[in-house]
Structure formats: structure tokens, C-alpha cells
């Protein structure tokens, strides 16, 4: 069942009662849900998100926002749906962790402003912390289509929390891995190698950085990019009530003048992807 189609113009969201095609557990806290939602997949740009109802009843009541992870195709290459990379955080995500093939979930999307992939000769660096990996499968795929050279800096707590490496290497992505416990890649935070490589790179090569992860990580990446003179785009994850611009719950502070004044804008319609330089990182809460 697709609703909204009759009213839809251009790239407006649709609401699909999508069948769960597969639920692939990755860890006790992580899974990938594949959803039959061709109408959403067709228009979804990298970094856009969907709002998913997690319960049949009224508790939990609100939908939950998720980045569109993969565009899913059938054997003939036809777009048949999307997947989401889900991390168990509370009641809603726990339900999605436990979802079973055949279940149906209301999925609204695609929503929000996407990451805009850069063309060669510019280079693209993606920086992902934990479940912040979610938007980058489609970013990487779009970059690959453009032939842009790309690197993924990907950090997690430990080796078993690093997923889908081959998806990225398969697209020609150079991987730089870090784990907090040192069980894989470089020990420590993902911003370590990022800072080093930024310092070491030739200054004349255009570079765009895309980041998603915990707010402190994104703040650090924004600062590093600023110092290095590279544009940084981040995907924020504030609490969202509606995803459509209706409720004003998801606001983030934007610098609206040089005197340090800020203005609150809705990240569901003006984001979730923002140019890091426009955000007021001092005012931005340290996330959920």
C-alpha cells in the first residue's frame, strides 16, 4: 500500500506499508532491515532519511528517523527497496531489531536534504562513527558513479562493531579504520588518522569531507576541516517528531550573522545534512 502517491509532485515523500524482506543481525545491537519500498528507493538521494512506525498500536507513538542505508535491487537490477542500518537504542529500535520477514512497517520518505557528492578532480573523504556509517553506503555509491576518488574513515568501539567493509571496498573506497579498544585498525578515535592525513595532504587538491556520527565527533571534524580549509558536510541526528517540518522539534542553531547571533532551523527540512561552517557548534547540544 502506498499512500500519498496521488498527491505527490516531484520528489515529495510517500508513505509505504513496506514488507520486511530480510532482517540481518550484525551484532547484539545492530541489524540491517531490508524493506520493499521501490517508490521510496526510486527518489532517494544519498543522506536522505525515512520515518518508520515501529508499533502497530499507539506505543511507541511517533515514527523514528533512519538514514537510507542501501538502495536494494533485485537480480535484474531493478530497484525494489531500501535497507536501514539499525542500532538498538530504546523501545522503537528494539522493535526494528526484532522485526521479522513478512512484517509490514509504515515507511515515510525520502525526506530531508541530501549529501551532494563532489565530482572529480575533487576528492571525497567520508567520516563515520558507529551507526553514523548509515548514510555512507549511498554516498559512496553515488561518488563511485561520478568516478570520485574516496576514502572512508570509519571508527567504532571494537572490531566486531565495524560492518560492511567489503561494500565500500567493492566501490573502490579506501578504508581507514579505527577502534577504541584497538582490536582492529588504529587504536583510538577516527579523528586521529583524519587529522594526520589532513595535515599531510597536498594543499592544492580540492577535498570535501562528509561526516556522520556522535555530535562531539562531528564537531571535531568540522574544526579540522575548517583549519584545513576544506568544506565539511555533516548529517545531524536530533530528536524528530514529524520529519516533515510540521513540529519544530528538530531545530539546530545556525549562525546567522558574524556577530555570533544564532537562529534555530529545522533539521528535517533544512537538513539533516548541513554545511558544518553554517552551524553554531558551541550551541549545538552534545546529542542524545
Amino acid at each position, binding site marked *: 500500500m502506498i*499512500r500519498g502517491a496521488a498527491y505527490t509532485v516531484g520528489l515529495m515523500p510517500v508513505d509505504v506499508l513496506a514488507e520486511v524482506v530480510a532482517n540481518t543481525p550484525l551484532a547484539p545491537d545492530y541489524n540491517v532491515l531490508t524493506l520493499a519500498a521501490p517508490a521510496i528507493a526510486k527518489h532517494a538521494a544519498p543522506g536522505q532519511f525515512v520515518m518508520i512506525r515501529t508499533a502497530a498500536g499507539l506505543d511507541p*507513538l511517533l515514527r523514528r528517523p533512519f538514514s537510507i542505508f542501501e538502495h536494494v535491487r533485485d537480480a535484474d537490477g531493478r530497484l525494489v527497496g531500501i535497507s536501514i542500518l539499525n542500532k538498538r537504542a530504546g523501545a522503537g529500535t528494539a522493535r526494528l531489531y526484532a522485526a521479522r520477514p513478512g512484517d509490514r512497517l509504515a515507511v515515510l520518505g525520502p525526506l530531508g536534504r541530501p549529501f551532494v557528492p563532489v565530482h572529480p578532480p575533487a576528492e571525497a573523504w567520508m567520516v563515520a562513527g558507529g551507526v553514523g556509517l548509515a548514510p555512507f553506503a549511498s554516498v559512496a555509491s553515488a561518488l563511485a558513479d561520478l568516478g570520485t576518488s574516496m576514502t572512508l574513515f570509519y571508527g567504532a568501539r571494537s572490531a566486531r562493531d565495524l560492518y560492511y567493509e567489503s561494500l565500500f571496498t567493492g566501490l573502490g573506497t579506501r578504508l581507514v579504520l579505527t577502534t577504541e579498544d584497538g582490536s582492529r585498525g588504529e587504536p583510538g578515535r577516527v579523528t586521529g588518522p583524519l587529522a594526520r592525513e589532513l595535515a599531510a595532504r597536498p594543499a592544492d587538491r580540492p577535498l570535501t569531507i562528509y561526516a556522520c556520527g556522535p555530535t562531539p565527533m562531528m564537531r571535531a571534524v568540522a574544526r579540522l576541516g575548517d583549519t584545513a580549509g576544506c568544506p565539511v558536510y555533516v548529517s545531524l541526528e536530533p530528536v524528530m517528531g514529524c520529519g516533515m517540518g510540521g*513540529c*519544530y522539534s528538530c*531545530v539546530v542553531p545556525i549562525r546567522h550573522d558574524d556577530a555570533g547571533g544564532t537562529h534555530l532551523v529545522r533539521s528535517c527540512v533544512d537538513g539533516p545534512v548541513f554545511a558544518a561552517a553554517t552551524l553554531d557548534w558551541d550551541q549545538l547540544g552534545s546529542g542524545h
Partner: protein
Amino acid sequence: MADLSVRIGALTLRNPFMSASGCFGYGVEYADAIDLASLGAVVVKGLFLEPREGHAPPRIVETPAGMINAIGLQGIGVRRFVAEKMPELRRLGATVIVNVCGTTIDEYCEVSRVLADTEGVAAIELNISCPNIKEGGIQFGCSLAGTHDVVSAVRRVTTLPLFPKLTPNVTDVASFARAAEEAGADAVSLVNTFLAMAIDVETRTPMLSNVMGGLSGPAIRPIAVRMVWECRQAVKLPIIGIGGITSARDALEFFIAGATAVQVGTANFVDPFIWAGLTAGVDAYLDRHGLPRVADLVGQLQIPRKAHV
């Protein structure tokens, strides 16, 4: 196909379903997804005279079958609304009702005057019930004299239909409906949200930056239905029922309790395409019950004699 049109004072709406203020932005946000002209009316976000930044996030928190919000009436101010949003709303054929806020009676009057001079504003909903601002708002809504004063002051500056929006955070909501009626209101909207609060027990801090906020959603519906029914018996004014409506069945509860029209707030967050189902559902009900007009349902609650134990 039954007749879904309803009259609220001088205003005729094509159907009794409106967006609730603050739950539908300025309407234009939804214009690409749904046909705004298919709604009975679009009630836009509360507006003051000047732009307002609202409260710091977190601004919402979910609760069982409900949510608490403390948006703090972030908004662009009535003049920018008139200049930037009204042209598109007019072009789209929306019936526009503006939710008017103020910290003083003068401000309510001033905002209403601006709207009275604006083409395409169908009515004014007077927000004297927002729990999320310190000055004004609910202070008027929690006092009978305050309610009377605001409504009669605004009444003097505009002939637009005037719908004071009542707060449920009072002992006797019917007396407030009466005060509104005596002051010259054309209808009352009820209810606004219930003052509420949620605590993050791990940090022992409030979940909302503003500490308290307003509870909305299905959780409050049974209280809202009761208040509509109480007011139905107290006043002749049309009532616009609000609170936790998620389906045609829920809306029917409000009509039968005494509401001439209803607003949908929180449920629109969960389902932005809710409107077609509401009209279809009520239409099917009317057909099934052999009722030609939705207006025939209003206040039709039957109280049976207590025959059976």
C-alpha cells in the same frame, strides 16, 4: 457521499477536519504532499507580533500514547507570515485560520488587526492556553476575567470569526467556554495541551529544556472528549474539538460529544496523509447510519436510562 460541510458561525468549511496549530507548520510545508484545499481549514502555527526563537532543544519527548512539547512558539511573527506565507496559502486555495498569541492584550489586538487587514484569513484562533510561555497565553486562559478581557478586546478590533482556544488545565472548563461566549466569541477550540513533565532518571534532569511542556496525543483524548461534552451543555457556541484524534472513529467521538469540527495535531506527525482517511471514514459511517450530513451528528450522544445492572 454525505454532506461533510459544517458551519462555524459565519464560516462554512468543506469538511470538519482542520490541522491543529503548531502541528502543521505554516501549512506550506505540507503543500507538496497533500492538497491543502482538501482540509476543512489549515490552522497555522501560533504567531506573535514579532518573530520568536522558541525554547532550546530538546523540545519534545515521547510518553505512553502521547508526547510532551515545549517548542516555545518559535515563529516568524505575523507580518512576515502575511508577507511570506499567505500568498502561497491563498494560491493553494487553503482556508486559513491563524492562531494568535500575545503577551499582553494589546499584542493580541495588534496581531488580530494585522490579520483583519489580510486577504484570505478565514478566522482567528486566540491562543490563550499555551503552557509553554511565561508571560501571557495560559495566564489569560486560566482566569475567567482574563479570558473575557482578551476575547472582548479582540472582538472590538475585528469582525473575523473568533475562536478562543481553551486550556484543559482548569477545574471547570465549561465556565471558560461561557466566559468566551459572553465576550463575543464565535466558537471555542478545545483542548490545548495538558501541562506535563518527564524526567531522565539517569541524569535526574528534565527531558525538556523548558522543564515542563504540554501533553498531546491519544493519551489525552478521553479527557478532551469529556470537556467537549461538558462545554456542549454549557454553551450554544460551536465547539472545535481537539485532542488525540487519530482516526475517523476518534473524530466521531468528538462530533457525538458535541464538536462541530475537529483538529488533528499529533496524529499528523505520525501520519501526514491522515486526511483522506478521516473524510472517507466519516463519510462511510454516515452512509452506514443513513445520515445525510455530518452536522446531524453533533451532540447526538444518547444517555440510556440505566436499565441493566
